[in-house]
């Protein structure tokens, strides 16, 4: 349990982690947020991320992997720069969420959990994202898009392609 001498994270994220582990009664409580924030910066949870987080918290890399494999947002492989997550759960399904999913598949030329060749987009069918009353709903990285139609979806994808998409981190 220590601050490592060298870090793979940006100075800002490293400083954030230094503070994060002190906020709770036990350091380990910072584990899930650290994994997610590392993924935001690195793109996925690499072996190097696992190793450094284990040192920072004072647990084994195996402990880290054990937790990492539980949470559906955490991934050990890169995805597209913009991960398009289409909800098809019940409220969205009733409002043609599957139509939006099919539309995205066709527009992006990829299927569930695939990445476009240029690495710009990836696509995922996801479970309820808490936007049921504004269905059908999609999340691109952390940003929500509600009340979608295929036309609106095109516009959203176009904005990201042109570098004009929202990017909440």
């Amino acid at each position, binding site marked *: 349990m220590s601050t490592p001498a060298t870090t793979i994270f940006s100075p800002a994220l490293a400083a954030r982690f230094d503070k994060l582990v002190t906020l709770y009664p036990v350091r380990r409580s910072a584990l899930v947020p650290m994994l997610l924030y590392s993924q935001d910066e690195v793109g996925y949870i690499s072996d190097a991320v696992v190793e450094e987080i284990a040192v920072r918290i004072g647990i084994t890399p195996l402990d880290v992997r*054990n937790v990492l494999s539980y949470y559906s947002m955490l991934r050990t492989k890169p995805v597209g720069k913009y991960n398009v997550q289409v909800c098809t*759960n019940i409220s969205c399904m009733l409002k043609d969420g*599957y139509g939006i999913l099919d539309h995205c598949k066709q527009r992006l030329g990829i299927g569930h959990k695939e990445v476009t060749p240029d690495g710009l987009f990836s696509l995922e069918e996801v*479970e309820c994202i808490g936007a049921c*009353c504004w269905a059908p709903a999609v999340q691109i990285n952390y940003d929500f898009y509600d009340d979608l139609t295929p036309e609106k979806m095109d516009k959203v994808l176009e904005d990201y392609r042109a570098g004009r998409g929202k990017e909440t981190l």
Partner: protein
Amino acid sequence: MPRLVSHPDEVKIISRRFGQGAAEIDRYIELDGYKAAQAAIEKGPEWIIAEMKASGLRGRGGAGFPTGMKWSFVPKQSEKPKYVLVNGDESEPGTCKDHLIFLHDPHAVIEGTLIAGLAIGAKMGFIYLRGEYRYLLKIMEKAVADAYAKGFLGKNIFGSGIDFEVVTQTGAGAYEVGEESALMESLEGKRGVPRIKPPFPAVVGLYGGPTVINNAETIATAPHILLMGGEAYAKVGTERNGGTRLFGISGHVERPGVYELPMGFNLKRAIYEVAGGIPGGKKLKAVVPGGSSTPVLLPEEIDVGLDFDQMAKAGTMLGSGGVVVIDESVCMVEFALRTIKFYQHESCGWCIPCREGTDWLKKSITRLHAGGAVDKDIDNIRYLAENMMGRTFCPLGDAAAMPTIGFVKKFRHEFEEHLNGKGCPYEHQREAVLV
């Protein structure tokens, strides 16, 4: 930005600051913010708990346990520190109410956390949001920082000599973490699997200390109750079901949205008057009244009051307040399949009846929907689901089994229509669901 809706039948208590800019602390203070917390400091824990009990408030996460009673179970003396844990892991399909609370009224969550802390003698509270709610976490983080800057959190809050810390936490994708003991595991940096009970969290909870865990809506209601008085709040609702709650009406209605209605409000009126009825002149086929885990109601069963007791009498549950309205164009087998597919995906795998049961249900209903089943498969589906009930560590097993039993019971004829190679009679059948 999620659309806000309004209807004259609403009674706005918890949503009264929505759309008013109350995420800014000064605006929140203008709108009576942090008055309840100051009153709570002045009048002390007994007063808080008495008001909460008088309010008749029952947990808004779905279980409906009386909040005042829950708070009173925490032992006064404890060697280990006590904690307040706010469950904002909103993930029950059909439910998006906490989304709006975090967005429009984050300080109500903080103030409620503080009030719960004062009531039980805790010095620390955690506000846990699902990982997908990053933009809402940012709003919460800013609100917490602003409250610290004003001296409402931290050391010597409001100059009272009392200390109270609040920490926000993000999840990373897991429905199961909405279960209270799994939530504690997750906050302790572990896999979100449930703990065996007893001991209950009020005695041995987070980090082994006595812990109060409440849904975000429940917590955000506490300041309003202290402001208006427990009895006045109780009067808004029905007997043993105090106040109002946020109902998210989604699916096939003209005006989907989150509406704040008094407890006991008639479900039929909520659908036809408040949410504007079914679009396109279509007929109503079914209503899932309280999130995807609650048993389905038929059109002739919806003339019923939306409170915990009346819904239980109607053979279903008030649940999370997520009312999902389904018109005649929908194949109920497909709907049942989408529902079980979710629970199969989210089962944490900790105990066998849930892990295996959800998987077999998904496989059986998939096959049935595609036409590959015979008559006795329908009974097998029901038998399997019934045998999961009450046999799992946490309520996820029941959450998967209950709706399945409901669909088979009430729409058996639709299951039958799919049998013996016939497949789905509804033309909008999709490959995607069958994967």
